[in-house]
C-alpha cells in the first residue's frame, strides 16, 4: 500500500521528480532504537514547493539528510524508496549518490558556517563545487561564481568573491550558500530551516530569492521549517510531521483554511498571529513531544491530544492509517468524519 497522494500531487504528465515511499530511518543507540522517520511517503514535482513543518525532533532534518545521502555510513538503518527522477537512491552506491548531489540535487542548511569551509574564500568554494561537475577552466568557473553571487544579491561580487565566510554577515552567508547550492542548476533543492537564524527583514529577502530562483530554474523545492508563516509564503503543498511520521498533508490552502488533524489545530492555536485580532490567550498543546525511542502505542499524539478519548480505545491501541479524506487531503487520525468537521467548525475555527 502506498501513501502517496497520487491524484492530487501528480500533474499527470510524467512522475514527480522526487518520490519518497515508506521511508524509515532508524538509529540504533545504547538506549534503544531511535525511530527518527517511520513510514514516510511524499512526492514533489518540478516547479513545485513542498513545505515540511513540525516541531524540533520530528524527523525533518533526518529526512532531508537521507535524500541527500548524507547520513554517516552504518549509523542509520534506512529502508523504503527515495526515487530521484525515477532512480532509487536507497542502497545506491555512495559515490554515485555523491555525484548526483550538487549536480541534480542540492541542500541549504540552517547554519551556513557548517556548510562552508572557514579557510577558503567564498569564491574558491563555489568554483570547487562547480568544477566537480563541470570540466571548465578556473577562470571560467570564477566568472560563474561572480555571476552567481551577483544573482543572489551580494553587493560588489567582483571583490566579495575573495572574502572568507566570516567576513560576510549572516544574511550574506546564507546567500553565498544558496549560490554554492545553485552552482550546477540542481533540479531538486532542499532548504532545511534556511531562515531560522535570520532577522525578519533578511528572512524576507531570502524567501524572495528562493522563490525567484525556483521560477527561473523550474526546480522542485522542499522547504523545511518549524514556522508556519514561512511555509505559507512559499509552499504549494504542506506536510505536517509529528514523531517521525506525516500526520497531515494537503495543499497549503487546505492546511491553513481547513486543517483536519488535531496536531495541526494545536500548532495553529499556539501561534500568535499578526493577521488576526489579538487573542487574550494562546491555546498551547499540552505536554511535550514523545521520545522517539518510546513512541506511544496507538496514535503517537494521544498523550497530548484533547480528542483522544473520543474514539473508544482506538487512539491508544491502534496506529491511525494515513489516508485520503478527499481530494488528496491526507490525515492520520481516528476521529470519525462528522466529529472532526464538528470540532473544526464549532471549537477550533472560531478561536483561530
Amino acid at each position, binding site marked *: 500500500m502506498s501513501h502517496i497522494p497520487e491524484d492530487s500531487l501528480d500533474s499527470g504528465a510524467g512522475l514527480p521528480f522526487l518520490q519518497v515511499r515508506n521511508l524509515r530511518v532508524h538509529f540504533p543507540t545504547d538506549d534503544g532504537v531511535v525511530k527518527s522517520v517511520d513510514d514516510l511517503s511524499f512526492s514533489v514535482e518540478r516547479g513545485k514547493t513542498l513545505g515540511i513543518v513540525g516541531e524540533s525532533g520530528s524527523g525533518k532534518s533526518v529526512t532531508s539528510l537521507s535524500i541527500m545521502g548524507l547520513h554517516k555510513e552504518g549509523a542509520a538503518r534506512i529502508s523504503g524508496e527515495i526515487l530521484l527522477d525515477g532512480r532509487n537512491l536507497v542502497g545506491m552506491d555512495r559515490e554515485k549518490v555523491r555525484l548526483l548531489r550538487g549536480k541534480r540535487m542540492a541542500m541549504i542548511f540552517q547554519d551556513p558556517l557548517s556548510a562552508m569551509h572557514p579557510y577558503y574564500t567564498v569564491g574558491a568554494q563555489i568554483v570547487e563545487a562547480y568544477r566537480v561537475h563541470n570540466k571548465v577552466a578556473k577562470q571560467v568557473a570564477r566568472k560563474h561564481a561572480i555571476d552567481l553571487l551577483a544573482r543572489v544579491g551580494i553587493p560588489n561580487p567582483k571583490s566579495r568573491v575573495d572574502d572568507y565566510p566570516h567576513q560576510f554577515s549572516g544574511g550574506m552567508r546564507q546567500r553565498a550558500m544558496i549560490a554554492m547550492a545553485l552552482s550546477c542548476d540542481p533540479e531538486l533543492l532542499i532548504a532545511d530551516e534556511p531562515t531560522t537564524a535570520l532577522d*525578519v*527583514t533578511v528572512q524576507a529577502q531570502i524567501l524572495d530569492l528562493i522563490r525567484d530562483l525556483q521560477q527561473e530554474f523550474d526546480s522542485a523545492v522542499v522547504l523545511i521549517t518549524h514556522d508556519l508563516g514561512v511555509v505559507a509564503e512559499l509552499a504549494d503543498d504542506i506536510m505536517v510531521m509529528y514523531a517521525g511520521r506525516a500526520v497531515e498533508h494537503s495543499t497549503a490552502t487546505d492546511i491553513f483554511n481547513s486543517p483536519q488533524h488535531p496536531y495541526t489545530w494545536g500548532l495553529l492555536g499556539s501561534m*500568535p*498571529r*499578526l493577521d488576526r485580532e489579538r487573542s487574550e490567550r494562546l491555546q*498551547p498543546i499540552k505536554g*511535550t513531544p514523545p521520545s522517539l525511542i518510546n513512541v506511544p502505542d496507538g496514535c503517537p499524539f494521544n498523550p497530548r491530544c484533547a480528542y483522544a478519548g473520543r474514539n473508544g480505545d482506538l487512539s491508544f491501541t491502534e496506529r491511525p492509517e494515513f489516508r485520503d479524506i478527499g481530494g488528496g487531503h491526507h490525515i492520520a487520525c481516528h476521529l470519525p468524519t462528522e466529529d472532526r468537521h464538528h470540532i473544526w467548525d464549532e471549537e477550533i475555527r472560531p478561536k483561530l
Partner: protein
Amino acid sequence: MSTPKPAGELLSVTGLRKHFPIRRGILQRQVGAVQAVDGLTFSVNRGETLSLVGESGCGKTTTGRLLTRLLEPTSGKIVLDGRDISHLSMSAMRPLRCDVQMIFQDPYSSLNPRHTVGTIVGAPFRLQKVRPENGVKRAVQDLLELVGLNPEHYNRYPHEFSGGQRQRIGIARTLALKPKLIVADEPVSALDVSIQAQVVNLLEDLQDEFNLTYVMIAHDLSVVRHVSDRVAVMYLGKIMEIADRTSLYERPMHPYTVALLSAVPVPDTSRRTRRERIRLQGDVPSPINPPVGCRFHTRCWKAQEVCKVEEPALAELAPGHRAACHFPENVGGSV
C-alpha cells in the same frame, strides 16, 4: 540619592549609553568603540510589560544587562523604584538583586548542568542569605509547582528536562526572591511553537498573580504584540519608535517599524499576492561607525538629503507615541 518617584513608574531610564571600547596593539590603545546602546530614554510602569524589539545586534541584550546592572553604563541614568542604580557597586547592588532579575534566552546554557534543580532554583536564597519561612527545600518545591513542574523533580539534573521545562526552571529561579522587575531576554525564542505558547501563558499568569513588571526582549513581532503593553523598536543602539501596543501595530510611524511589520510572514496563503511589502535592502550597518544623521538612512526608502545630516529627535507625535523620523508615516488626522 533618592529621586522623586512618579506614581506607577517603576523604572526610568534617561540617556542610557554603553560603548564597548575596541583596543589594538601592544599598548591596548583604544581605537574606537562599539556603540551598542547609544542614548535610550524610556520608562516602565508597575505591572506593565515593555518589549524591546529590533534586528540582531541592535543592543537589546546589552540594554537588558544594563538594566539588571550586569554591565556598567558608559553614561546615562537608571532609576529603579526611586533609587538611582546607574553606578552602584557590586556590593551596593546586592540587596537590590532581589528586586531585579533576568531570564536568559538559552534554556540550555543558562543552567549549570552539574547542579540539581533544587540547587539551581534555591541558589538565590543562599546568595542573598534569605531564609524562607518553611526552609529552602519547601520554598523551591512551591516555586516548581508554581511554574508547572513536578515538585518531586527537586533532585534531577537539567539534562533530564526538555527545553520548555528548562525555561520553566529558569523562571522559577527568577521568581525565588519575588522581584519587582524581570528582564526576560528572548525567553521563548528557542522553544517550539506549542511549548512557546505554554511559557507565554505562564509568564502572563505570574504577572497577574504577583503584579510583576516585565521588560521583554524579543525579535518575533507576533509574540511581542501578544505579550506587550508597550513596545520600543530599536535600531543600532537607539529607540526609533515607542508606543502602546495598539498604536504601534495599527499606526506605525517610523519607516523601520513599517518595514519590520511588513516582513513578518503570516500563516495565510491568500495573503501571498495581496500583501504590499516593503523590502529593506542590505544589512544593518556596523555599530562601530553608525551612519550619521538618521541611523536608518542607508536602508530607508523615504530618505532625503536632510536625513543624512540631521538626526531626527524622538518626538511625541501622538499621545504616548514617539518616533524619531523626519518624514513619519501615519501622522496627521486629529490633533
